């Protein structure tokens, strides 16, 4: 198990390096003069020269990459072109909003989706199962930005139950949670359906396995058979799926953040792409990528730890 963890962590490091490299290339090798784009048409030659020097645009690409990588390792992601604040601080300020949104949205999706899936599998073709099926497919198909816009219109604008935009007053936890409700609802809704379908499918498979027949033949109560014996086995593929879920939520619930004007990573990257603020885009995307890879790594390790058969072979 330790060896497996070490191997997976090593692999993760390789993936992160590859991501950073690709990202760097994408940003720096696109055609056009970054100085001209960033500084606009009215820049003086002096401003341009200062910009080129600061951004090391006169150095060859590999030198720039190595210096970027070296700085990144030390936590220095460069400076914002306009405000000259360190990128790492800008990203660190946005991060909590994104993480809070990811946990809130997936959290409620897990609490509703998994029991719903179990129930559907334990009562296949009952009316609740059919209803869950219809609702699940519906929530999976509706894009989260549509849910975001409509929930904003209905619950905030018309009914005025929830605040319209922003993430709440800094330092006021109650207010921040209040602002979190609608975005979490919008992002998590699709996951409720997704998890319910996934858990139902793997539960149905497990409930047909012979060890479940044995458990029933010993007269164990149906509750124990379904929620203890079957769910333990059926949950394993879902854990891996959740890793992906957290990963993608970290790397930006972009639409939800833009629509609700939450100052998270997704909105940050979007704003900075529009403003051609390359160092911030670079730092933001890299952070998001690392979070994604880390989330899947943790999910894989958890899945391995939960399954004694895997644990033994690692």
């Amino acid at each position: 198990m330790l060896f497996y963890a070490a191997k997976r962590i090593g692999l993760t490091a390789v993936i992160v390096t590859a991501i950073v490299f690709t990202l760097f290339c994408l940003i720096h090798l696109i055609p056009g003069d970054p100085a001209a784009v960033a500084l606009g048409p009215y820049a003086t030659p002096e401003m341009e020269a200062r910009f080129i020097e600061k951004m090391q645009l006169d150095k060859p690409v590999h030198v720039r990459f190595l210096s970027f990588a070296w700085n990144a390792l030390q936590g220095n992601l460069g400076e914002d072109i306009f405000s000259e604040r360190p990128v790492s601080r800008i990203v660190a300020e946005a991060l909590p909003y994104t993480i809070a949104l990811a946990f809130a949205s997936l959290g409620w999706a897990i609490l509703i989706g998994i029991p719903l899936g179990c129930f559907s599998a334990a009562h296949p073709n009952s009316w609740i199962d059919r209803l869950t099926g219809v609702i699940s497919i519906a929530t999976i198909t509706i894009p989260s930005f549509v849910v975001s816009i409509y929930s904003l219109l209905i619950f905030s604008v018309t009914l005025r139950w929830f605040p319209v935009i922003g993430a709440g007053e800094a330092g006021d936890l109650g207010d921040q949670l209040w602002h979190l409700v609608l975005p979490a609802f919008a992002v998590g809704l699709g996951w409720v359906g997704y998890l319910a379908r996934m858990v139902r499918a793997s539960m149905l498979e497990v409930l047909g396995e012979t060890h479940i027949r044995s458990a029933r033949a010993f007269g164990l109560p149906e509750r124990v058979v379904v929620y203890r014996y079957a769910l333990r086995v059926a949950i394993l593929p879902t854990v891996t799926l959740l890793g992906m879920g957290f990963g993608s939520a970290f790397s930006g619930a972009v639409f939800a953040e833009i629509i609700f004007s939450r100052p998270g990573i997704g909105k940050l990257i979007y704003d900075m792409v529009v403003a051609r603020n390359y160092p911030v885009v670079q730092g933001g995307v890299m952070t998001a990528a690392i979070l994604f890879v880390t989330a899947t790594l943790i999910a894989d390790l958890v899945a391995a730890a939960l399954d004694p058969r895997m644990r033994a072979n690692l």
Partner: protein
Amino acid sequence: MTPTMTDVLDIRKLSVEYATARGAVHALRDVSLCVPRKKTVGIVGESGCGKSTLIASILHLMSRNARVPAGQILFNGIDTLTLGEDALRDLRGNKVSMVFQDPMTAQNPVIPIARQMVDIQYRERLSTEEKRKRAVAMLRRVGIPDPESRIDGYPHEFSGGMRQRISIAMALLVRPDLLIADEPTTALDVNMEAQIIFLLRELQQEFGTSLLFASHNLGLIAELCDDVVVMYAGEVVERGSVRDIFHEPQHPYTQRLLECDPALVKDGRRTLPTIPGRVPDLRVIPEACIFEARCHKAFSVCRERHPAPVEISDTQSVRCHLASGLTGAPVRRAEPRPQGGGLRRKHAGEPLLAVENLRVRYRTEGFLKALASGNRDPFLDGVKQVSLMLRRGETLGLVGESGSGKTSLGRAIIGLTPCHSGSIRFDGTELVGLPDAEYNLQRRKMAMMFQDPIASLSPRRTARSLVMEPFEIHGIKLEDEDAEAERLFAMVGLSTAFFNRYPHELSGGQARRVGAARALALSPELIIADEPTAGLDTSVQGEILNLMGELQREHGLSYLVISHNLPAIRHISDRIGVMYLGRLVEEGPVAEIFENPAHPYTRALIEGTPHPDPDRRRTLLSIEGEVPSLKDRPRGCEFHPRCPIAEPMCSREAPQARDIAPAHAAACHFPLNREHLKQRA
């Protein structure tokens, strides 16, 4: 056999139907049987005869589309069919417990054994600590070594035989009145099978539990049961005491089943008897006797009337018109009985395959992991220094317990597993290290028949395309594909009606035939058949073995047949090789091996096969224990820890293979019945 209140289980005129999209399947019709207290009752019959449905109906563990239109299932006098779900659950795992067929999947894979064994005692008013103690004691009783610590393990940490012991321990832990075992040894090899049967017999006596035992293996039924119920196509065709059934079977089906058992066919050279035809479709039940279509004794009345059970003695009843004294002109001519000299064997030709010092190694740990854990040799030997020779037109049978390396050897010869060292000469060409282009030319002359007939065929291809696939793979253009397909189907006795069937639409025997046609496609010289009869009913086993024999005679094929079923393999083999822990420990002519085995392991394998005769029950196990781990080979003779005649020398010195008779070699210091060859310690 009149039912009384002393019977634990009394099933009366039970019928069960399954609702399907294409109409109701009448899976059980008018089935009656009873299990007396402290007795063992066996249910026997081919697959599809309703054994599993019958067993599942007792505790209402049937699939959701099942319906019970008539009958009673009296358990201790109470009709379980009238019980609600809660009352039924109160019987399950309390008064009645079950042991299922496949031990590998019988327990929850992610919950420790201890937890599962404590959970099933949920009705007892004991502390968890006490429940655990009871579980440990029961595991010790069924022969799990070191139960105190191993109880905390998970099912995958145990071998198949050990897992079946755990299943039995769990089933007996709840002290049931009735234990139901559904083919409990089918997934195990002969040696494990014998151990499990002995264990069941002992425990049944010790706990005074009644046992209902379903199996298609007549030998096991004879060995274990007091009474026997023979089922065919959802009906009980005959029931009686074990001696009635095995010594004086009355129903033609029972008679035929017994004839088909290869263990009862004395002459090893004879064509094996079979029961022609198949179990009928149970959607439309004919007016006639259900067995009429396959019965060699059928006469006019059999086509007109369905027979009722006839009591022919206190213990025996038969559902056959013959038993009620009716006779008439037979409706079909008895097909010619198989004659002697049917199967194989003229004279062997020149050598076709010569394997020398072959070694197959498997990696146990990845390169990095081995480096990290300091394991300098992260390999184990699946096949170790095996030498053998096969002549043209000859059949070599390879036998041994699971894990003895027989499949590895077969796969290595045909190139599915890389060889580590040694030599394989095939048709005069050395195959080890041969460049791909030349190898492929040789490879066409060999074919493999795989172990699991249906799973080894792609589910997305039709039978015709599967049979023609070898031509595609080897890029061979045919002038007339249809003619070739017809020829191949005809060779294995399948009509062209099977062309468009998919594997799941085939029976086990038909899928075997498709597998054989596929193997024959490129007119090979050597066919490696891995467990060609595993999972088949006795009657179908004979068909497949006869087919293999015919094909050999017509096409001069050579076979390497891998099996753990010794009586079956005896009928097609010229010579037998016995493998243990990846080594060939004995090799010789089939008659010699069976009549005068030299290696104690060979003798144990032969004695491990039960005889379908209740008067020849075994009283002693031939060998104890299991095949040791390949990672931890015993020193000296690798068989010595399990050998009944081992001497101190055996644990020190590894025996070399030596000739003990012409063309008969064995690796043993003290070969059986050969005083002059025994070595001094």
